[in-house]
């Protein structure tokens, strides 16, 4: 006990100094940070959304959606390929039933040629070398394309990857600080935006697929047919909630329209005649050319602007629009127009995203939680410190110094790991303090016991530390087990609690056992006490 080697003292002090240095930035009041010397570590402990206010939103994409989209794209590609084949391959009875694409080749002798033409349209997927579609010929002239598991997985993965990018762009447009956007699992995205005022607007923005289409209105459809949901051949019925002509839907031609995804810009503006909020879009060269052709060929016919499967408005094409810009109107308010502009600028989501979980905390509640949490923590800590001194005297003081150092160390390690402090995390802090105290109680009670059994001072302390350490070690390992499982299975704030607990258990055992031991050793060496008050 007396020969506590110098190198040990030095390394313990160094670690403690480092921990304190790392903790300082997190303890500085907001304004003081700029005066803090820049050569020292700057990292701060992050505050969780429950403490600083903000929104946590979990988005989920529907795999079925991706599969359907993929099937539709395949149909269009196959149609194109059959048309482009020389000689042209006639096909018919195209069906997308049961998630498969199947069609008849009109001329049986062309089945092999059709197969050959389709084969390059499929690619390898995944690591197994499986292709993304299976091609079979049934009943001599029917070709069936079935999506493979690997193909679907890859498609979902790509869709989610793109969706994450789109979500990031949209949130960046909002100009919030430090949003976190992470893909989670197969089809989920976690979005965390600190200090947000209006979570509703964010949810709306993220929920909007923003798929814009321009399609020609089918004027041959009778209002009765539309009301009954019967579309003429080659047309489809699309809902139109704000139809000025009455009714809630109109018929549009399925083909011959264009998609509004080839945009270089989208801005909220006002219509020059009606002064209504509108969204002005600018096409890129390819999109502009297509749009020009569409309007040129259909002057004086109405065309529908469709957003996410719903008609916004269906104005007449008065003259060809050649400049590559267009105006989208449709009963907007300034806010909704602005939102659509953002959504269009950041691109369409390749998959519809639903909000499956939302947790928002207003900044006021967060501030209140921090204040009360810190107050409770401070009161609890001071009471515990006083209690320790009353009970163990000098050894209580040592334990208390170790305890304060422990708190600083936890903060320092958290800052170093860029960890997040949540409200349950503050509770975790208090509990860690409890654990640190327990370790010292175990040691001190053991020393008392050994003294009572007649051991000499130094020996009693020596035995006290070694015997108590065993139980401390075992008890804290089990706590680490609990904390790790908490981290693995917990979510959000609970994880924050687990992080504090894991860090805290390690640092508290270290400070409670080694740091106090160092103090005691130094004291014993200096004073050589004849009496031990404990």
């Amino acid at each position, binding site marked *: 006990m007396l020969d506590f080697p110098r190198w040990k003292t030095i390394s313990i002090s160094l670690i403690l100094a480092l921990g304190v240095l790392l903790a300082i930035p997190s303890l500085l009041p907001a304004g003081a940070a700029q005066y803090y010397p820049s050569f020292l570590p700057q990292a701060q402990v992050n505050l969780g959304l429950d403490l600083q206010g903000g929104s946590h939103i979990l988005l989920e994409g529907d795999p079925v959606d991706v599969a359907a989209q993929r099937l539709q794209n395949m149909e269009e590609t196959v149609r194109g390929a059959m048309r482009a084949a020389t000689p042209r391959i006639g096909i018919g009875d195209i069906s997308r039933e049961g998630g498969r694409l199947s069609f008849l080749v009109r001329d049986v002798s062309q089945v092999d040629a059709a197969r050959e033409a389709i084969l390059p349209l499929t690619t390898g997927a995944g690591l197994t070398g499986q292709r993304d579609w299976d091609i079979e010929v049934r009943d001599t002239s029917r070709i069936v394309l079935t999506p493979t598991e690997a193909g679907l997985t890859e498609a979902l993965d790509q869709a989610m990857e793109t969706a994450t990018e789109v979500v990031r762009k949209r949130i960046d447009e909002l100009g919030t600080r430090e949003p976190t956007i992470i893909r989670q699992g197969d089809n989920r995205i976690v979005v965390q935006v600190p200090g947000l005022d209006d979570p509703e607007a964010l949810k709306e923005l993220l929920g909007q697929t923003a798929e814009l289409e321009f399609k020609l209105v089918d004027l041959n459809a009778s209002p009765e047919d539309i009301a009954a949901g019967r579309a003429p051949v080659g047309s489809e019925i699309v809902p139109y909630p704000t139809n000025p002509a009455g009714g809630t839907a109109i018929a549009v031609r399925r083909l011959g329209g264009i998609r509004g995804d080839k945009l270089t810009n989208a801005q909220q503006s006002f219509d020059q005649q009606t002064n209504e909020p509108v969204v002005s879009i600018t096409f890129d060269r390819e999109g502009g050319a297509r749009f020009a052709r569409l309007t040129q060929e259909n002057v004086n016919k109405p065309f529908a602007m469709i957003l996410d499967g719903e008609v916004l408005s269906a104005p007449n094409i008065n003259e060809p629009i050649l400049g590559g810009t267009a105006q989208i109107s449709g009963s907007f308010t300034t806010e909704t127009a602005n939102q659509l502009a953002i959504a269009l600028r950041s691109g369409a989501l390749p998959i519809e995203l639903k909000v499956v979980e939302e947790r928002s905390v207003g900044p006021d509640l967060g501030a209140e939680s921090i204040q009360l949490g810190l*107050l409770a923590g401070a009161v609890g800590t001071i009471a515990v410190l006083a209690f320790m001194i009353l009970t163990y005297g000098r050894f209580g003081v040592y334990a208390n110094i170790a305890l304060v150092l422990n708190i600083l160390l936890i903060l320092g390690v958290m800052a170093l790991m860029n960890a997040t402090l949540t409200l349950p995390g503050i*509770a975790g802090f208090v509990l860690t303090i*409890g654990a640190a105290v327990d370790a010292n109680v175990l040691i001190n009670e053991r020393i008392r016991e050994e003294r009572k059994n007649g051991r000499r001072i130094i020996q009693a302390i020596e035995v006290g530390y070694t015997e108590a350490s065993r139980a401390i070690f075992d008890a804290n390992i089990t706590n680490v087990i609990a904390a790790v499982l908490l981290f693995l299975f*917990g979510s959000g704030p609970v994880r924050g609690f687990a992080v504090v607990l894991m860090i805290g258990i390690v640092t508290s055992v270290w400070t409670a056992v080694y740091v106090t031991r160092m103090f005691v050793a130094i004291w014993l060496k200096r004073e050589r006490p004849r009496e031990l008050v404990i």
Partner: protein
Amino acid sequence: MKLLKLVPDNTNFRFLRWRKLAMTISLLTIIASIVLVGVRGLNLGVDFVGGQMIQVTFDEVEEAPVAQLRSDIQALNLGESTIQRFGQPNQVSVRMRLDGDNAEEVNAVTSRVTQMITTQYAEQGARIDGVDSVSGKVSGELLSTGVYSLVFAMIAIAIYIWFRFEWQFGVAALFALFHDVTLTFGFFALTQLEFNLNIVAALLTIIGYSLNDTIVVFDRVRENLRKYRKMDMIALLDLSTNETLARTIMTTLTMLIALMALLLIGPGVIFGFTAAMTLGLFVGSYSSVYMANPILVWLGVGAHSFVPHMSDADRAEAKLKEGIGGAKP
């Protein structure tokens, strides 16, 4: 300076004299807890049943207009709502359960209720402080991962104790934990405090700290088993409990001080959490003495438990060591 001593020297309570009575009481409370959970059910938060919870503070009034709010929400015709006060008298939480896989429905309900509150209660200074909305699918996942984490934690800990001690100790610790967890569930069924994700965290912490106690006692039991080979097992367990009594009381008290501060001053959001922890503190200490120890007796732990599977040579060596050990003061 005269130092505080909570437990006088040489205490000698015969704790285990009451082991049968205590065990009966323990079993009865376990059964009562299970029945309570079965009959009254847990007041599951939106984390586990799906739905939404909105926290509102009414800045301009002393007390939240709970009755009016209830009828106004009823008028929206969106389903059952539970309105509870939390923290200050002008703070309430509005909870609505929406079962099933229904992400869009939950969102729509959340928007409508928040909108209604902010417009109709503008005069009372209504401020939306927090929104939790969880779809049925996610809540189902949260529930299953919560259950897994509890079960895995208990099993992992029991296995660790089995390695460090003997299998009987692992079993005894597992039973003690089962007792603690069941009683906490019973407490939540009785008080109808909201059972949410934070409470799972509290339960895992209770497990951790109950084990702290159990292990401290076990450690002393192991030590004494090696020291006093001939002592009667029950006397030995009593001795070990008495020897660690000062530490148990001291630690429980300091933890209690810290928890009381959180409970009385801390934010209302974590009230349930700290309440569970406080209960766990007492239940955990009790179960270490009256659940874990009697089970050790019944599973036949004795001096032989720590000298297993030895060859003759080992045994001879052990005997030699024992002789040396016994000579120590």
